[in-house]
């Protein structure tokens, strides 16, 4: 019974922790045509991506898993990779939610769409709830409820 109650409380704490506002990480990139720049970041679920080109030039954004990013680094090409999200020909600025499968290391890449240099200011903000913590939290609460119900049932059967 007590373990069940403890699990419910811990699960609630995990759900509360998944709602904690995430701090945004970002920076600026200056990229030539045919090259790319960006950031490697850690995420615990979906992220909000905000990007703005200084002179409203067009650019593309690729969000990749760590393994895809490693493949790009090894081969020097964006071909034959399957990005988590692609935003091609973004005109000037974008603000969007990117759905990520869970906790992990991801990379965000910026590249010019036309033959020009782009100057981008961007932010990757952790969206709440952080699914990487929320789902295990719900799981722990469920297990706790089952344990409490089972112990109540066994007590009830014992008392009869």
């Amino acid at each position: 019974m007590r373990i069940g109650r403890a699990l419910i409380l811990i699960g609630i704490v995990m759900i509360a922790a998944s709602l904690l506002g995430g701090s945004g990480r970002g920076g600026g990139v200056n990229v030539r045509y045919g090259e790319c720049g960006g950031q490697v970041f850690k995420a615990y679920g979906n992220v909000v991506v905000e990007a703005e080109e200084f002179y409203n030039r067009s650019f593309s954004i690729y969000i990749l898993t760590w393994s895809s990013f490693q493949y790009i680094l090894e081969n020097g090409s964006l071909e034959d990779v399957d990005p988590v999200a692609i935003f091609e020909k973004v005109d000037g600025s974008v603000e969007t939610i990117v759905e990520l499968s869970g906790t992990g290391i991801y990379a965000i890449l910026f590249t010019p769409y036309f033959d020009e240099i782009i100057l981008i200011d961007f932010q990757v903000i952790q969206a709440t709830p952080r699914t990487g913590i929320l789902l295990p939290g719900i799981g722990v609460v469920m297990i706790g409820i089952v344990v409490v119900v089972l112990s109540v049932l066994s007590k009830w059967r014992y008392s009869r």
Partner: protein
Amino acid sequence: MRKNLRAIIAIEFENMVYFPILEGIICLLVFFCFSALTASFAQDFEIITGSVYNGTTIETDILEDIQRLNIQQAVNPLQALSVAYFFFVPLLSTLTITRPIEDGTLRAYLSFPVSRSSILMVKFLLVNLILWVTSTGSWIMVVALLLPGYQQYLSLIVWSLVLLLNCMVITSTCFLISMLSKQSGTSLFIGLGLWYVLTVLASSYNTPIQLRGLFFPAIIVWLSVQYGSSYVLTGELILPILGAIAIVILAYSACHIVFKKMEV
């Protein structure tokens, strides 16, 4: 004698960990760990294609940075947990020292044929063990859940011994305060106040590192991880830890003397 000691351990344990005290402590520790570990990190890169393609160098650099940042992230909760102790230790020391004086339980203990030293030792070890086990458990749970490939960080559990030392420093001084005041409210107020002041001092960069590490040994571990393992071998880590051990021994000895002479 051994039977009586076991009875005292059982009573003390039940007094300290009744619902929802233990669950509350675990929940807050887990929350502290989550909030310390989920601070996001990021690493910039630039891929220049063509004749000066630098992919392999970037990969090596990023991997090194990720490894360093992951270790930092794994150690971050240590600092948060040692701050959490500043709330829990005055609370638990009040529960274990002053409350039995106020409700007469201590008088009942003293009627057992068990020495006062043993009673004090039981109380001291229980408070430290409960906090250390729950905090290390919370830490492992959060690291296992949030750090991919967490097995490589399990060696960091050794650092939790510094957390135990941190806990013992605060426990021994809070025990002494509780014994001298003999009142729950007063000892809780003084304990929280004292450790609040010390936390502020420890978090100030103007305070010498040796003094910060003396009352807050976990900060040294955090710094050693941040600035490289060679830091561990320097006096900046060893001296505060030896100083903290000396504080524990001195404060515990003072508790021992006060407890032996204390009128209940």
